[in-house]
């Protein structure tokens, strides 16, 4: 799978909505993969939600190839596509398939404008639900809330976690 090539159109579309930081990009790509658009990144749980070191490295590889720049502004690393798109822009970029495109556009429309804070709780909630399911544990509403609180402590209120569950249900990520 051409991970880098598939990542380019995704970053381009996200950049039309906002200049993403690394955190925003991680969370949006996670949500895109969860919709069934396979990019092949492996996510582990960190304090700030699901995180893929492979995706982080892929972003740096794209910078090495001149596709994007990672600008350090203040305390953030902001990802900006270069004007000429680097050398692999033309030949090696891989467009999403006809089946994938509407799913991808839906994620962009629903989530790309959200703040990194909101994306953190939404993706963490989803990750917790998926792990509970994978482990064969109870994954009802209360178990998910409890699971998120274990990881997040008091960072997010009960209401905020419930709001995340509602969004995930509405957008087809969770069926409780």
């Amino acid at each position: 799978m051409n991970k880098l090539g598939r990542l380019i159109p995704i970053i381009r579309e996200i950049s039309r909505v906002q200049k993403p930081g690394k955190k925003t990009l991680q969370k949006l790509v996670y949500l895109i993969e969860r919709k069934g658009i396979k990019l092949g990144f492996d996510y582990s749980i960190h304090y700030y939600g699901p995180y893929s070191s492979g995706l982080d490295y892929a972003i740096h590889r794209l910078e090495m190839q001149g596709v994007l720049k990672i600008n350090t502004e203040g305390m953030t690393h902001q990802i900006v596509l270069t004007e000429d798109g680097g050398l692999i822009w033309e030949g090696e970029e891989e467009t999403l398939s006809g089946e994938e495109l509407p799913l991808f556009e839906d994620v962009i429309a629903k989530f790309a404008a959200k703040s990194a804070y909101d994306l953190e709780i939404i993706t963490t909630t989803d990750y917790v639900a998926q792990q509970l399911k994978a482990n064969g544990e109870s994954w009802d509403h209360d178990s998910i809330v409890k699971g998120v609180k274990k990881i997040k402590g008091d960072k997010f209120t009960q209401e905020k976690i419930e709001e995340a569950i509602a969004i995930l249900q509405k957008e087809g990520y969770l069926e409780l």
Partner: protein
Amino acid sequence: MDFRDPIHGFIPVRPLERKIIDSRPFQRLRHIKQLSLTNLVYHGAEHTRFGHSIGVMHLVTRAFKAVVTNKDLFSEEQKEWYEQILRLMALTHDLGHAPFSHGSEAVFPDSLVHEDYTDNIIMNTEIADYIREIGQEFVTKYGEEYNITPELICSIYRGRNISNPDFIFLRKFLDSELDCDKMDYLLRDSYYCGVNYGRYDLERLISTLTVYKEENNKNLYLAIEKGGLYAFEEFVLARYFMFIQVYFHRTRRFLDKILVEFLKKNLPDGKYPEDIDEYLSWNDNVVWRLIKDSQDKDEYANRLMNRRIMKCVYESPTHSEYNDRRIFNLIKNELEEKFGKDNFIYDSADKLAHKIPLKHTIDSEQDIPEQAIPIILDHTKTPGTISTESGVIKNMTEPINIWRIYAKEEMAVRAKNLVNDIFNKMSS
């Protein structure tokens, strides 16, 4: 009992851990070289994943003890339990390596990585039984919540365990910019290669490891005291030098490249098997036998057997930028036009000098501080960052990014002349 190790001296091993070491999957690691074919460049590099795995177990124990001793972080039971979990994660973390370690990972079945094989071996071989035995000892001693299972070890190591935020912290000892895997392999690889590039002050580094606890929640970060910053800088630099001088050595890269090409042609379906029993039958010796048997009919096998190295006729700057890739492409096209495609092999090797964010706040809205190493200062509760505390690491921002072209011996001189002509034209 103790294992005598050339890097760390005597390494204590507990009786039930010994069962893991004596198992077939672990003994297989004696036949998987740590550095692939590097022994054909640095002849001392004969060491294997076996010693490294035991070394990491030893270091992770030392590091964890250094961090938690005299701190009110965990109960005594928790400390004992976490330490055992870490030891088992360390001991088993490389069980899934392919022959020649990273050197032949390119022929894994689609989408599999060596960690997937590790999980499979831990959960589906005798290793699982030995881990459960250790878990049962803890259950007997402290109760069911202190059980250790193969699934627990795998889920913490892969970062998929959501049951306890402390597990995120434990994982940092084995997968972070300050992890014991790197601490061991730098010293071990340096020792066996006979180089000094990977050496650093291990004792100082371990003695200054500490923890940063966020005020508003329970998150724990593996951190370093300000006094250990220079040992940490040395550690980061050691890794950088090892990549440039050893891991990305031009001859080693060439050998790994042709090993992969050989395996693609000679393995069933061009890939290692997914089945774990079949996979475990593969090691360096088995591949060498295949190479030996094929040397008269396969060019790559012949090159590997007889150490026939194609000549490197172009090498980009160590920190090449994308304009350098334009030059690489130009040279590649001209060489192929003049001499034909089949006479050349191309390689690119890249690595970040480090992944530590230069500036970060621990709870950042926009950024990801997952790789942050907080630096604990005497005068303030707010930890320092690399940006404020380390001029050396702060300036190591350019990734290693090397492009190479190797030419067959018979046209190496002419190819090299053509490369020189291209550069002369560009500079005139």
